[in-house]
């Protein structure tokens, strides 16, 4: 081991002591900055990740939507599935209906799914919290948890469905009774809006409710794992005839406003928290500079023992690096621990401040998500360690400028 690394380690962890005040304060300062960066990046990234997951879980990787109606779903799906990267497709139709139980009406979104195909594209079964997807047929319905609660229904209850087509018929004085469906499943996705007001029926029932015939509103597309969604969407659009009225969009294109807001929020908060790390580095610089002043005679001694200026400087630089590395490791550990319990922490804070409901209303999620990528972790670690090393470098530069004879003479 080079002597300057040995001395740097000894000065941080002296013989007979576990930690010096300098080491403890510096490591804590860096750790606090890294911890904040990990938590902020993880939570902000979590919203984006959760939102993406939500869209993919409910609409597939890519949505192909028709301007108006798509009247030959079988041909379109055959065409889509022949495109490289596409592994499955499922037709869908959606709209709004009136759902009534007794005299209590609601107006949820309704989605018709092809029960033979839907599971190849959307992991619907994963979100069923009561009942079974297997029981879904043309006379049954699956409701979101919030919708079931607002209607006061559960598995086995009957609901009346009145669609716009039914209303049109009533306007034309045609006699048509509301469609009665039995609730066979309750689902919960973790998104306030979707969990609050969505009903799922079979595609046939939806086509019947909306008088669509064989037509559908669009298709949900599942891609092969690792497939780039943007490239795949471009590939699909390139093969679709302009006259088809079909257009493939990614989850990002479908919700640009919300994702942009999240991205901006993430950048702003990360920028602000980066200043916390910067302030921690000023602390490390100040403490190391104090060490240089306090150890001026020792620096002179090292010169007298045969140390070159750059070796002495390297010792201080390494102290900054070691402090940065230890602080980063501690900060990462604390950050991961916080992210693992972020939902409980936010719920506890929300219950204390009474802001939980507002937060759910703003972000739509009933659980605080956390997601951080390896690249983001590497970025945070690299930033903190390089800033701490830079702090050490500033002190080292001052130490290197000291001439041994002047350092030894210093009072």
């Amino acid at each position, binding site marked *: 081991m080079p002597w300057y690394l*040995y001395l740097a380690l000894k000065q941080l962890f002296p013989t007979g002591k576990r930690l010096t005040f300098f080491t403890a304060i510096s490591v804590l300062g860096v750790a606090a900055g890294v911890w904040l960066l990990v938590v902020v990046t993880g939570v902000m990234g979590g919203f984006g990740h959760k939102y993406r997951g939500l869209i993919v879980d409910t609409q597939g990787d890519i949505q192909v939507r028709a301007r108006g109606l798509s009247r030959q779903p079988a041909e379109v799906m055959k065409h889509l599935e022949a495109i490289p990267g596409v592994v499955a497709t499922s037709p869908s139709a959606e709209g709004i209906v009136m759902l009534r139980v007794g005299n209590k009406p609601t107006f949820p979104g309704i989605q018709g799914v092809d029960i033979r195909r839907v599971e190849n594209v959307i992991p619907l079964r994963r979100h069923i919290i009561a009942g079974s997807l297997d029981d879904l047929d043309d006379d049954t319905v699956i409701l979101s948890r919030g919708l079931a609660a607002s209607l006061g229904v559960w598995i086995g209850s009957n609901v009346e469905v009145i669609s716009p087509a039914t209303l049109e018929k009533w306007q034309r004085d045609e006699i048509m009774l509301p469609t009665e469906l039995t609730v066979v499943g309750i689902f919960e996705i973790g998104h306030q809006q979707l969990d609050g007001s969505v009903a799922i029926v079979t595609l046939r029932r939806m086509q019947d409710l909306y008088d669509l015939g064989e037509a559908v509103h669009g298709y949900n597309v599942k891609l092969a794992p690792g497939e780039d969604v943007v490239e795949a969407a471009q590939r699909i659009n390139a093969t679709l005839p302009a006259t088809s009225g079909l257009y493939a969009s990614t989850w990002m294109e479908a919700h640009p406003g919300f994702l942009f807001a999240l991205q901006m929020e993430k950048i702003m908060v990360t920028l602000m928290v980066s200043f916390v790390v910067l302030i921690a580095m000023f602390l490390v610089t100040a403490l190391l500079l104090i060490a240089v002043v306090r150890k001026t005679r020792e620096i002179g001694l090292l010169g007298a023992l045969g140390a070159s200026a750059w070796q002495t400087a390297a010792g201080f630089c390494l102290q900054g690096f070691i402090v940065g590395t230890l602080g980063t490791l501690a900060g990462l550990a604390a950050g991961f621990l916080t992210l693992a319990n972020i939902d409980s922490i936010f719920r506890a804070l929300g219950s204390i401040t009474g802001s939980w409901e507002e937060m759910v209303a703003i972000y739509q999620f009933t659980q605080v998500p956390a997601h951080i990528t390896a690249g983001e972790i590497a970025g945070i670690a690299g930033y903190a360690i390089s800033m701490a090393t830079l702090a050490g470098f500033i002190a080292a530069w001052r130490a290197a400028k000291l001439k041994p004879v002047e350092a030894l003479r210093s009072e």
Partner: protein
Amino acid sequence: MKLNEINEPILRVEGVRKSFTSGDRKIEVLRDVAFAISAGESASIRGESGSGKSTLLNLFAGLDAPDAGRIELEGRTRIDAAARGRLIGIVFQSFYLIPELNAYENVLMAARVAGVLNAETRQRATELLRRVGLADRAHHVPAQLSGGERQRVAVARALINSPRLLLADEPTGNLDEKTGDGVIDVLLGLCDETKTALVLVTHNAAHASRCAQKFLLHEGVLSPAS
């Protein structure tokens, strides 16, 4: 060492001058200093405070450069940091032990810096600490040692690399008389045994008189003392 090199001076100093500037004033600290010392010899330099003793020692050690004149260490006129670490041992008045290291680690630090840390130097460090009477204090940090003990650790550190020249700058200046005598005993004894040339700068006439050569530095002029 060849027989004809035995009396060849390890350190040879000729016509050395050194001055400092204070404001507009130029203070001449050393004037035409000449000095030589061979292996196994000892020399003392006495002088009033501010007479330039420490400046002279810094020049000998290559820590500072003269304005004029020639300083040769083993025939070399340029002493770089690495050569200084191997050829010269220095004992300071204020010990300058590294507080985070224990006595043994402080002694070995000089070997680490000189790049000669090995099993032999580790053994030598233990032996030197035994010779300076600190075998049982090897794992104590400087804060746990008395002034005399600290200076003895500094002596062991100065000798760990088997230097050719040992420069001692008022090594007993911070010690009481009895402790100081003990440190000088150790210094002279070890230098004699290892044939290390010793230059001792001191205020203490009794300590100075124990060296073979005695010099007086007065108004920048180094002259033999009676």
